[in-house]
Every structure is written in C-alpha cells, then in structure tokens.
C-alpha cells in the first residue's frame, strides 16, 4: 500500500539515484575495495590488508601534505569568506549599472580556466620581471621569489585561491544580503545603530545559513585543493609540490601515486582517507549547526 502510494516519488528520484549510484557510490565502494590491494590497474590485485594505509600514513609526503593542508585551510577559508563578505557589502552598496559592473568584475576569476589563472599569477609572481616585484621595486624592496621561496609559497597560493574563490562566495553572499528585510535595518537605525553595528548585529546573524553554506563549501573545496598548486609549481606526475614540497597537498600526492608510481591500490586508499575526512568534517559542521540552532 505504502509502496504503491510512494511509487511516483520513487520513480521521480530514480534517475538521480541511478546516476548517484553509478558515478558516486560505486566509485567510492570500488575505491574502498581496491584500497586493500596492491594493484597497478591491469594485473591481478594482491590483497595486502591495511598495508596501503600504513604506507601512506607513515610516509613523509603524507605528513607534509597534511601539514600544508592544515595551514592552507586555516588561512584561506576564513580569509576568503571575509573578503567575499566585504566585496558583497561593497557591491550591495552600489546601485544600477555599477552594481552589475562590480559583480561581474569580481566574478570574472571564477570563470577563468585554472591554467590561465595560474599563468597570469606565475607572471605576476615572477622574480625581477613580475608585476608584483616591479611594484615592490618602486618601494625599494628586493625581488622576492614568491613561487620558489619556501617562506612565501603558501601565501602566494592563498592569494591566488582567495582571488578566485572570493567572486563565487561574493555572489552567494550578495544573494543572501538581498533577502534581508529592510525593516530590520530601519529598526536598527531608529535604535541609533551605526553602520558597523548594523553589519555585526543584523547582517551577519541574518546571513547565518548563507555563511554556513559558504564556509562548509569552502572547507570541502580547500581539502581537495589540486589544480592551482599543481600549475603554480609546474608539477608533473614524477615531480610535484614545488621546492621542498612547500606546496604539496593530499590530492597531488594521491595523483602522483596513481599515475606517477602506478600504485592504484595505494592511491585508492589515499582517496578513501580523504573521502572519510571530508565526510567527517561536513558531518561535524552540520552537527555544530544543529547544536547551535538548538541553543
């Protein structure tokens, strides 16, 4: 009876469920299966138990990749959101043609292909001739090797990442800003709230769900960072991560093990570790939000 009643609903979600099973669930489960095997992708897989996981967790590259990732996330996610919020507030203060112009201008880096963005930034960061070093040179600062100096490499990447992600986050936050009732600002103004107090006590609380989405999405994206550090360091499957692995990240390490070392079992284990980490972080974020709402 219940099945008959819900059959149309099941049928309606069936296309998604089939595609989800084929392109998400199956690869994840298949990855989990192969993570217990020594497998080069072609020959017969040899069962090795947890050896792949032990090999990954015990490797220096994994430690380095995870340390880099932690530093990267701690800076890039909050910084990216802060800048996006500032841009959204700025664009929201404009009206008419200028609002459209700035919104499009800030969104431009999002639609730029990663290799093009990396090429532009490699030119900006280039020692001696790069745009940034030329500007710094006007102030008497000696040329900085942003992409080869281990002290600056991570920050150079973060700047590129924030440049790209700020536009995307800004558009989402801007949509959130448009949904905040104007009455709240009027009431705040009548109560004598300054512009800053309006942002802190009206805008940010009202943007809660939007900021939660932007933060969670940013966190998940940051955990999978790959293309920008790969391109900025001119990496290949046999050599990646830049000088002294200052820009080595987990997905790069996983790709190197898969296509550089042809160790698909180990790469599958790496992928599964990352999947579990991403799911755990996402679940934690949702639990935290649910707990805060209950409070």
């Amino acid at each position, binding site marked *: 009876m219940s099945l008959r009643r819900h059959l149309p609903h099941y049928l309606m979600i069936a296309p998604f469920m089939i595609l989800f099973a084929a392109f998400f669930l199956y690869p994840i489960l298949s990855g989990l299966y192969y993570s217990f095997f020594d497998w*080069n*992708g*072609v*020959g017969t897989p040899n069962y090795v138990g947890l050896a792949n996981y032990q*090999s990954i967790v015990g*490797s*220096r*590259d994994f430690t380095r990749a995870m340390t880099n990732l932690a530093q990267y996330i701690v800076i890039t996610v909050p910084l990216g959101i802060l800048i996006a919020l500032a841009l959204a507030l700025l664009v929201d203060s404009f009206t008419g043609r200028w609002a459209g112009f700035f919104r499009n201008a800030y969104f431009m880096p999002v639609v730029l292909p990663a290799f093009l963005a990396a090429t532009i930034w*490699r*030119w900006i960061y*280039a*020692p*001696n*001739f*790069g745009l940034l070093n030329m500007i710094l040179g006007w102030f008497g600062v000696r*040329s900085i*090797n942003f992409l*080869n*100096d281990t002290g600056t490499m991570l920050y150079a990447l973060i700047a590129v990442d924030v440049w790209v992600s700020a536009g995307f986050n800004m558009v989402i936050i801007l949509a959130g800003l448009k949904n905040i009732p104007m009455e709240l600002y009027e009431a705040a103004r009548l109560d004598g709230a300054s512009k800053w107090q309006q942002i802190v006590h009206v805008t940010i609380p009202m943007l809660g769900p939007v900021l939660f989405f932007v933060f969670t999405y940013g966190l998940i994206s940051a955990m999978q960072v790959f293309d920008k550090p790969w391109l900025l360091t*001119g990496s*290949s*499957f*046999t*050599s*990646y*991560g830049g*000088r*002294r*692995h200052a820009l080595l990240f987990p997905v790069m390490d996983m790709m*190197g*093990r898969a*296509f*550089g*070392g*042809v160790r*698909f079992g180990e790469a599958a284990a790496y992928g599964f570790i990352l999947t579990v980490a991403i799911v755990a972080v996402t679940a934690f974020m949702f639990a935290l939000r649910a707990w805060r709402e209950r409070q």
Partner: protein
Amino acid sequence: MKTIIRHCARLAGAAALIVAGMISTAAAEDVTLEYWVYSDFAQGDALALQQEFIKEFTAKHPGVKINITGKGDDDLTAGQVAGAVSGNLPDVFMNSQSVGAELVKVKALANIYDKWMAMPEEYRAQFDKDALEGCMAKPGELYCLPYTGFGSLLFRNLTVLQKAGIDTSKPPATWDEWLEQMKKVKQAGMYAIPDETLIFNSIAEIYATSGNTKSWGFNWDNHTTRIDPKIMAKVLGKFVDMVPLNSGTSRNDQATKDLFISNQLAFHTVGPWVNPTYEQAAKNSGLKYDFVLIPGDEPGKTGGIRSYEMVGVAPGKHEDLAFQFAAFITEKTQMARWAKLLARYNANAAAMADPEVSALPLIKTSVDAAHGAMDVAAPYFVGAVPNCYNSIVIDMASATADGEYTPEEGAKQMISELNDCLAK
C-alpha cells in the same frame, strides 16, 4: 526471352556477389589507428609534417586511417595508463623513455622485439646505439623505437659575458673555469645561472659535470640508487658555490628566459627547445648568444643529461600495422626531414649524419652533447621509479644549498633516503 531473363538474373547475381565481396574486403581492411604525440608535435609546421607522414603511409596502405592527437606530457602518461586499464589504448604513441617502466607495468607497451628483428639490417643499423639500448630492458625485449631526444646545452649570453670582461671566443673548458666566469658575472652585477637545485633534470645536469651514467640512476637488482656519495658531495658543494650567483628561478621558468633575453643572465643549461625563443629574440631585440657543451671537471669531459622520447606500440589487434607505422616514421628519410624542419636532434644516427642535417649548428652541437651526456634515469623499462625519488633528490639539493646540511652530510642523507624510497 526466358534465356535473356536467365542471363540477366545471372548477371545480377554475379554483380551482387562482387558488391558483397567488395564490401566485405573493405570492411576487413578498414582500420583506424589512433596516434598520440606530444602537443608541440601537433601544431604548426610539425603537425603539417606529421600529417604528410600519415598521408604517405596511408597511400601505401589503402583502407588505413590514422588519427593524430596532441597531448601534454602528463596527459600522455595518464591517458596511456588509463587506456591500458580500460582497454582503450592508442595504437601508436610517443612518450619519454623514463616513464617506460610504468607503461610496461600496466601492459600499455607491446614487446616489439620479434618485429624489430624481422626488419632489414639496413633499417636496424640506422639508430643510435645508446638510444636503442634504452628501449631494451633485457635480451629479447624491445619496448620502443627511439625517436627525438636531446643532450643538454650551455646557452651563453655573449653580451653579459663581455660586460663581465670574459673572453667569449673560447667556451669554458672545465667546471673551475666556468665557476670563475660565473663569479665575474656576479661581480659585474648580473646573474650567472638559474637555481639548478629546483628541477630534477638540472640537478642531474650538474651532477654529470662530475659523474656519469654508471654513477647515476638505479640498481634494480637490489633496489638501490647508483649515486656515488663522494660525487654527490662534490656536486652539492657546487650548488652551495652557486647560491650567491644564481637568479633564483628554475631553468624551466619563463622568468629565466626573460632574464637571458634582457641581458641579465649569463648561462642557461637546458635542452635545445629554448633555441627558437632565443633565435627570435636575436632577430627582434639583438640578443647575442651561442650554445656550447656543458663543461665537466676535467678538460674533455662534458656535463649535461640526455634523454629520448620514444614511439611505442600498444598490444592488440592492430599491433602489426601500428609497428609498421612506427617503423615508417622513425626511418632515416622521415627523421632527416623532421630534423631539418625543427633543427632538433633525434635518435636516428643515419639521419643525423645526413650532410644537410649535420650542417645545422644546433644539431651538430646536440649530437656531441648527447654523446658526452649522462642518461637521466637509466636503466629504463626495468623498474617504475617511485615518486619519492625525484623529490628526495630535489629536497636534499635545496636543503644543502640552503645550508641545512654540509655537502657530505647532504649526500649521505640523500643516498640513505633514496635507498629507503627504492626499497619500498
């Protein structure tokens, strides 16, 4: 009337049989080969010549069609590995010998030894012996036909050297002479050389000024590195000496080429592929440069590395035809045309000896450079080099140059870590 009808019916039947026969013959002969090449071989003049090769080959093989696709280095490897896994390999493809072992491991490369041995001696004798040996993992196994290649060269900016008071008529004969020139360049306020510790190949190029193929690469029997600790300590000392002299850019950075073209960098150790850029700069902005052999520790010894790109054939139903095509494009006539077009060295020694080819200065110097250079990752096609290997070499060279280790400590630590990496 009946007879006429009977004859017509017979004729129609015969015609139908002929048409059916033609269709089935065409179906049996229609073959499409997928041919993957490096992306720079799939554009401009290089693509036009490749298409000419294809046209000539298909003219002799009716029913055969060849699709050429250009791919970047990583895309070639990833595509071939993924193709082997999914059973959808290109039939003929290029790649570097240094990834050969990975491709053999995933069964992306056919052992073409028997087909090779069936070729006339005249064809087999055309190839450079060292390049060919690179394709032979063991007796009875041949996994590629060597194709293009390079020996690293020392590009010299003559304006910078002259400003530093250096006589440019004779290139430096030894490492000591070269280092002295680098110091003079720095004293004159310019950069001497890129940071050679940033790229695995540039580290190998400097290692080769003291070492050779026998003391570089891998002992696959016991999974250890062949790097000699004494030689490596000496080489790491060279990197320390070069720290105050270098530009901080890698040999592959665009910034390095910009410095060279704008007369701020004296030396650039790299393959011949930068020559078109410098040639253009010579025409456009008056850059004065030349290219010579990288000097070694003693007179007569040269540094630098050599490496070859290969043409491989995938195992499968088109293997024979794919080999015929691979043999056709690597044959002397085609390789000489290829060399003349790109002014680039290749593994066909007979083509390199062609008077029109050997008269090209870049090829002449490249032939000498390749003969004196060190193989970058030999032996090939035996073991897949773990990805930790290159990063350890780069890390330890950088760390020693940064002063974290003495050259002796750095060499010892590097070799210990490399052996651990290979053992895993």
